[in-house]
């Protein structure tokens, strides 16, 4: 069937478009929407860590519940996952189960929690209730958190066998994200 030009024209009263207004409006609106769209994935709080690719700041901290301090130095040769967390942070306990499961699965890596701005008794109670598969360390004066430039919790650093920070993750981790980032840390060890 051949559409004729006459039949495609609408029989109803076509509204007259004010082209000047249309063009002016689109000139302002379209770039604005485009810019906002391009920036959509950006988190205003995510300040790119200058630490990625650099040696991880060393630490030696006592685990929750007592015991001899654990240092990053002593873990050289294995990938290390350092998770800054606190009992008052809701996303932290959203990711807790994923971290515990990952620590049980990826036995070649060492998982460490570093307790951020929280007290030991509460942390101990939390771990007793929810279970833990790896040590959490007390960072009494927040010096380690400062050294790592932690802005808010949870933040997780993936460190390769040579003690270099391979990547950093802000926000609650899923099992998939842990596996992927840990893969990068393992790759760096080779």
């Amino acid at each position, binding site marked *: 069937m051949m559409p004729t030009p006459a039949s495609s024209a609408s029989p109803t009263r076509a*509204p*007259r*478009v*004010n*082209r000047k*207004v*249309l063009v002016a*409006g*689109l000139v302002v*609106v379209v770039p*604005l*929407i485009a*810019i*906002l*769209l*391009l*920036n*959509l994935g*950006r*988190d*205003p*709080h*995510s*300040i*790119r860590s200058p630490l990625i690719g650099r040696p991880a700041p060393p630490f030696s901290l006592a685990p929750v519940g007592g015991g001899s301090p654990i240092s990053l130095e002593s873990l050289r040769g294995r990938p290390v996952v350092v998770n800054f967390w606190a009992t*008052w*942070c*809701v*996303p932290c*306990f*959203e990711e807790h189960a994923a971290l515990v499961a990952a620590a049980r699965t990826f036995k070649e890596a060492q998982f460490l929690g570093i307790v*951020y*701005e929280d007290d030991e008794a509460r942390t101990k109670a939390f771990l007793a209730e929810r279970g833990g598969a790896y040590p959490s360390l007390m960072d009494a004066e*927040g010096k380690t*958190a400062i050294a790592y430039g932690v*802005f*808010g*919790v*949870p933040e997780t650093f993936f460190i390769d066998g040579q003690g270099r920070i391979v990547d950093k993750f*802000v*926000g*609650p981790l899923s099992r998939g994200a842990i596996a992927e980032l840990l893969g990068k840390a393992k790759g760096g060890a080779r």
Partner: protein
Amino acid sequence: MVPLAGRLLILLGLLAASAGSIVGFATGRRPSAAGWAWTRRFAYAFAAFMVLATLVMEYALLTHDFSVSYVAHVGSRSVPTWVTVVSLWSSLEGSILFWGLVMGIYVAVATYRNREAHPEYMPYAVGVWLACGAFFSFLLAGPAQPFATIPNPPVDGPGPNALLQNHYLMVMHPPFLYSGYVGMTIPFGLACAALLVGRLGHDFIRPLRNFLLLPWIFLTIAIVLGGWWAYEVLGWGGYWAWDPVENASFLPWLTATAALHSAILVERKGVLKAWTVTLVIASYLLTILGTFMTRSGVFNSVHSFTQSAIGPTILAFLGVALLFSVAALALRVDTLAPEGRLETGASRDAAFLVQNLLFVLFTFTVLLGTVFPLVVEAVRGAQMSVGRPYFDRLSVPIGVALLFVMGVGPALPWGRATGAQVRKALLPPLIGGAALLILGFLLGARNPWTLLALFFGGFTAQVTLAEIALPVRQRMRSRGEGLLEAIAQSQSRGRRRLGAYIVHAGALLAIVAIAVSSTTGTSKEIQLRRGESTTLGAYALTFVDADRFTEPHRESLVARLDVSKNGSRLGSLYPRMNQYESQREPIGTPAVRSSLTEDLYLSIHNIDVDSGSVGLLVLVNPMVSWIWIATAVMALGGLFALVPAFRAETALVRETGPTSMPAPEPQ
């Protein structure tokens, strides 16, 4: 149980808003009494569901029901009850619920007030309001989900953002801001209705103007409360930093102010109809842009980095609203043809036009500076920020020019003015300008822009005061009334006009105070040990002692400084640092000693209680109090104009009794 009730209420709100919006638009196209009645019913139902959902959330907060995710995020057993109550607007999800509440109330009130008026416009207007309402209920039902359930509820929560707990101003700021932001929905709906109907008559510009003035008052207060809070809490000694969050609230204020003025030309001359409608629509779109830019929460919780779907959803709404507005304007703007002609020579008409253009220029300047970092991020992938110099350099000339127009405009007559009229109008206020300029110079102002602001400030002050006094003088002369009687009579008659000039008086006071305070202060940074003293200008400060206080939710380090001015003791000031449990960075609370002429401002940089040393920022800020006073004057002027206008409108609609009944004389 509680989360379920909350979710159900939000779903019902979404249903009512969607249905009401559809019925409203249908009734707009094919008017019917039944359709209008149903539109109203849906509007009231939407409002009721939003109020109930908010009450359920408050109940969950007060009963510490941590199975509700919002309560788990912001609740805490250790904070005072008032903090728990205001936690509703302390974080993203709750603030959107609060938004829904404010919107429900606005929609219900605006619908009820116009239930018998403007039958051709109102169904469309309510349709637009409820379409916006449907979006926000959708946001609450889907992406935001304040009533989401947490399977293993925690025993206690972190409490709301420490900034909220730190100062009462931060508690008051969001309700005002939301009342301003959300309130722009009402004029937006009315403007869209005018476009859809294809008419903006005398009868309809009034509700449009009044419903624009109401959120404008709230927004004015909110912007300054935000600045006041920054001044009292952040400790860097200023009140405005051109931060994106601040700009987000300033942008719709600029376009709304422009629209309030162009509406006068619509009312008086029947011109600038399309322009006014555009400004009103822009004001609403800028509130949504601001909401998007700040991710809707003025408070971005530091603890929560969960990427939410709220941002993209708001952006989708913004995109739809922007394109709808452009399409509606392009298709319908020609129907709003002017009825008269705009005078472009030296006249009050032209001053209105210049004022409008300056406000729009200001809007684009601020918008560009705010969005530019995003452009750079998108194009070059670099993180940058547009600093204060850009904004200051461009806003100072625009502000001074506005001050000038605010003086020249009201001095000039309507219509075409002759050269003699112009001279007669503009020469006498030069005295006021010169007087303030000389006064400022003698008191030490040297910055050329400040001196210019003082000159125009004096000029405008004389014009404004003359305009306020004009009806009184006329009555005294023509009717032989006494001064007090003339004041009482004239204020009951021309209240809208008088209110407008009171706003002008406040605005010029604010501009002058900002110009003076930002250019003539002095400051110094100093490290003091216990017992040491320092001086700044006429002030002498002695660091007496430092102390530590522990409260359940925070620990405070407080310094005591004895202050004297020109040798006479003024008392002690106690700047402090507060360390909140859930926040690493301490939040300072500066100590400010305010007076009408200047503020003495002490802010702690560092403090060591044990060794007894303190690092201080000391500022002397002249005239800052006047900014807060000026804002109060502006808000009161707005209310003064608004209240009788609303009343007169109601009287007009009901046609009960004469509208020009003289007010009873005050004794």
